[in-house]
Every structure is written in structure tokens, then in C-alpha cells.
């Protein structure tokens, strides 16, 4: 973990300045490209999109679309993570389950969640059920596989220590192997959070009647490219913010599970 040393404040400002510079350059390139293309309908300038974003945020009905999508992300992510820890934990703990389920899990995780949208709508209809299924599908496998990996990284000396005290296999598993896997589980969850944002938008376009994905898709009818970009900006900002919050909260809250990893 990088604890702030002396001079860290200086670095912080330098990093922030570089970040702002990168964003400015991107916006400038975008603006240049839009001017060169010279067709606001096909390729709006950053300013047009920003004003469209302002329109979306000041319209209560459209502003709610962001909350609807965020709720789907949070609920699907929570369910998928819980299921992922359970499945990965079971595969990682019981050998017979591993032999049975592991190939199936590796098959399923290779199929993009997007491919399931259409079958999902046939089974679960257009709406919340299908959307939840897709987000859970997208989030369950990274968590399951990282949990599984964490459980196979046996902390040798911790387990040896427990064995000198005659600890049972169950106690060793519950009080040493599982807590040691926490950093792996958190890494899987962080990946999944990103996948939740990606999959929910695709699902909303095909199987949804609201949400940011639907807003983007719906804008095509009016050829409202500026609003499409406004939706993309919202998704990017929300995803970035969610990732930062998740990372800070887990590293602060679970610091003790990370400590000692760098030691012998």
C-alpha cells in the first residue's frame, strides 16, 4: 500500500494537473474533429453535448434515468457478487464440486452477457427481470473466479501455525484460508462493478423501457446525437466515480486483510 510520505502533497497536485491536462486535450481533439467533420448532426461539438447534458440533468424525468440505471447496477452487482463468492467459495473448498462445476463455469464466463439478452427477454420478458439477469450474469463470474483463485493461494505459514495448535480443517478454512482470500474477492468485485455498467446499458437498449441505455437508444429516433453523447458522458462519469468510491472504501475498510501481503 502506498502510504503518503513526505512530498506526497506535491505529487498529488502534479497528478491532478496531468489528469486535467489529459481531459482538456481530449476535449480539444474532440472539438477539432467535430469542426473538421463540419456536421453537427452526425458529430456534435463538446459544447453542444454539454448543453444536451445540461438539458438531461435539468429535466426531472430524464434525470431519473440515471438513478434507474444506477439502481440496476447496484442491485445486480450486489446479487452477482454474493452469488460469485458462494459459487467460487464452494468450488474452491470442496473438491468434488470443483470437478463438477469448474468446466461449466469456465464455459459460461466465456460467453458475453450480451449474447444472453435475447434469450433472457424470451424467458423473462422485456423489463426488470431480464435486466437483472444480465447484470447478475456479468458480475458473477469475475467474483467467482477470483474467489476460487484466492482460495487456492494457501498461506503456508499461517496454516502451519494453525496445525501446531491442532486446528481442524474446517477451522483452518474458515479462519485462515477464507480471510486470506479477501483481497482476491475484492479485486473480482472491482472488475465486476465495471462489467455491471457495461452490461446494463446493452441490456437496457434491447430489453429495457427506461434507463440511460434506453435514453441513448431512444435518441436515435430523433437523430439526437448530442443526447446520445450526453448519455455516454454520464455513464463514463458514473462508472469512474463508482470505481473510485469502491476502491477507497474497500482499501480503507479492509486494510487489515491487505497488510502483510508484501512481507515474507
Amino acid at each position, binding site marked *: 500500500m502506498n502510504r503518503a510520505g513526505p512530498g506526497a502533497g506535491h505529487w498529488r497536485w502534479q497528478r491532478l494537473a496531468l489528469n486535467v491536462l489529459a481531459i482538456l486535450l481530449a476535449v480539444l481533439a474532440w472539438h477539432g474533429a467535430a469542426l473538421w467533420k463540419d456536421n453537427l448532426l452526425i458529430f456534435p461539438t463538446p459544447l453542444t453535448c454539454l448543453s444536451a447534458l445540461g438539458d438531461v440533468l435539468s429535466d426531472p424525468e430524464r434525470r431519473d434515468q440515471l438513478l434507474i440505471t444506477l439502481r440496476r447496477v447496484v442491485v445486480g452487482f450486489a446479487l452477482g457478487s454474493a452469488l460469485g463468492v458462494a459459487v467460487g467459495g464452494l468450488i474452491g473448498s470442496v473438491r468434488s464440486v470443483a470437478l463438477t462445476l469448474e468446466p461449466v463455469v469456465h464455459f459460461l464466463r466465456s460467453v458475453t452477457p450480451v449474447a444472453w439478452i435475447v434469450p433472457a427477454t424470451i424467458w423473462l420478458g422485456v423489463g426488470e427481470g431480464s435486466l437483472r439477469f444480465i447484470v447478475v450474469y456479468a458480475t458473477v463470474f469475475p467474483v467467482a473466479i477470483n474467489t476460487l483463485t484466492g482460495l487456492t493461494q494457501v498461506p503456508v505459514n499461517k496454516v502451519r501455525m494453525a496445525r501446531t495448535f491442532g486446528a481442524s480443517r474446517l477451522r483452518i478454512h474458515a479462519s485462515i484460508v477464507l480471510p486470506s482470500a479477501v483481497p482476491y474477492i475484492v479485486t473480482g468485485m472491482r472488475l465486476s462493478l465495471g462489467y455491471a455498467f457495461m452490461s446494463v446499458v446493452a441490456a437496457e437498449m434491447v430489453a429495457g423501457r427506461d434507463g440511460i441505455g434506453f435514453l441513448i437508444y431512444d435518441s436515435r429516433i430523433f437523430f439526437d446525437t448530442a443526447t446520445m453523447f450526453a448519455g455516454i458522458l454520464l455513464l463514463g462519469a458514473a462508472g469512474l466515480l463508482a470505481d473510485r468510491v469502491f476502491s477507497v472504501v474497500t482499501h480503507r475498510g479492509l486494510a487489515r*486483510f491487505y*497488510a502483510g501481503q508484501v512481507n*515474507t
Partner: protein
Amino acid sequence: MTPPITDSRPRPSDEAFVVIDDVSFAYPGSPQPILRDVSLELRRGEFFVLLGPSGCGKTTILNQVAGFERPTTGSISMDGKPITGPGPDRAVIFQGDDSLLGWLNVRDNVEFGLRALRTPAAERTRRVRQALETVELDRQQGKFPHELSGGMKQRVQIARALVVDAPVLLMDEPFGALDAQTRTTLQDALAGLWEQSQRTVLFITHDISEALILGDRIGVMTSGPAARLQTVMDNPLPRPRARGAAEFAELYREVEEAVTAAKSRPPAAAGEPG
């Protein structure tokens, strides 16, 4: 629960307690053994130091006594009974700090063994408090391992071993990663602690001075692979021992000579350890 082992004898006896009998060890498929024909007896209540260069198989011997690994040939017994696996009668203090559970505070780390042994809660509380006082960590009991210095972490390990009252302590270079000052402090603390408890200790180090401060007897290992026990030397220095004393310096030279001789032994030499 087994009653606490309190050896009333003031001095180590001559009785063999842990017997390492003609042990060789090789990893499966490896042509070169790590240990060859090591025989050694630990007497009840003695502080035995195994001294040797890095990579000579000292830790391998300790792992066999702890029961983590089994000898390829030969046998190890304790109190006449063969050692077949790890057990609460042999507490281990590991080389690094990675045996501490980072998600538990100092108190809970020390209590871990008692919980595994299903000691009643009141008894656990009493023993943990006592052990923490012994290693002077009672003020740090709420802290987590990553908040402690290297020396404090090793004291947590010592408390964790003391709390279960194991008759044998196996210590694998426990002070190797510490700065010189902390190391000498902990050496003196351990010497005092051992004198009060009279447990049997197998202590591994490559530091001659450490061996002289702590050990009743010092076993000098040859370099690996196929390491042997070259010789066992008595350490008659009176306790508490002073690093500056003339006798200390003299014995230091003797041990150093033995270590040098052990390093330069011809590969085929088959002289049985004395």
C-alpha cells in the same frame, strides 16, 4: 486440557527428550538430499541452538521436529513417542511475520491457539493476559499486526507460543530480520524468559553471538546440500551472559573456528558428528 508444564528442575537434565535419529531428507525427485544422517538429542529443559550457514537445512530439521515434513529416512521422537505431525506440544515461532493473522488484533492472534484447543473462555482470558504481560505487549493488545514494529510482531509470536504452555519451543531464526538493537533486546528477554520457564528450546540461527547468548549447547552444521551436523559444543558461560566478557570472546573464537571448519569440509568426508 493438559496441565501447564512447569518443570521444577533448576537445570536441564541429561535425559533425552526429543531424539532425532539418523535423519536424512530429500524432496521427491531431487538427486541431492538436503540433510544426510543427522542425529541429535535435545535434553529436557535445555536451550539448544543449531548454527549454520543459510541454505544448510537448519529450517528443514526444525520443520521435521515440528511435524510439517517427514524424514525420508530415520525417525524423530519426543518423550519416546514418534512424531508424525504437528501438535500443541511443540509451538513454532516462524522466521518472518507471515504466520500472524493480519485481520486479528494482537490479543486475538495470541488467543488463536487456545481457541483451536477449545480452552474455556475464562481460562483463555487469563492466559492471554498473562502471556501479553510476559512479552510486554499488554498495552498493544488492541493493535493489528501491520501497526506493530518487527520486534513487537515477533513478541506476538512468542506470546502465541507461550500461551498454550507447550513443553517444546521451536524457533526458526526469529530475530533474523530485526535491527541489531532490537535483536539484542529480544535475545536478553528470551534468555530471561526461558530461565523462568525451563522449556526445551530448539533455536535456529546463523549468528554466532546469538547462539552464545542463548544456547546451553550449540550444534554446528556443515554447508548444504547434504548437510550434516559437524559438531556439538557445550556453552558453559554463566547466565546472564555478557557480550563483552573475555570468556564470551574466547568461546566466540572457538565456535567461529568450528563454523569455518564445517564450511570447508571435503564433500565426501564422512566423519560422524561427535
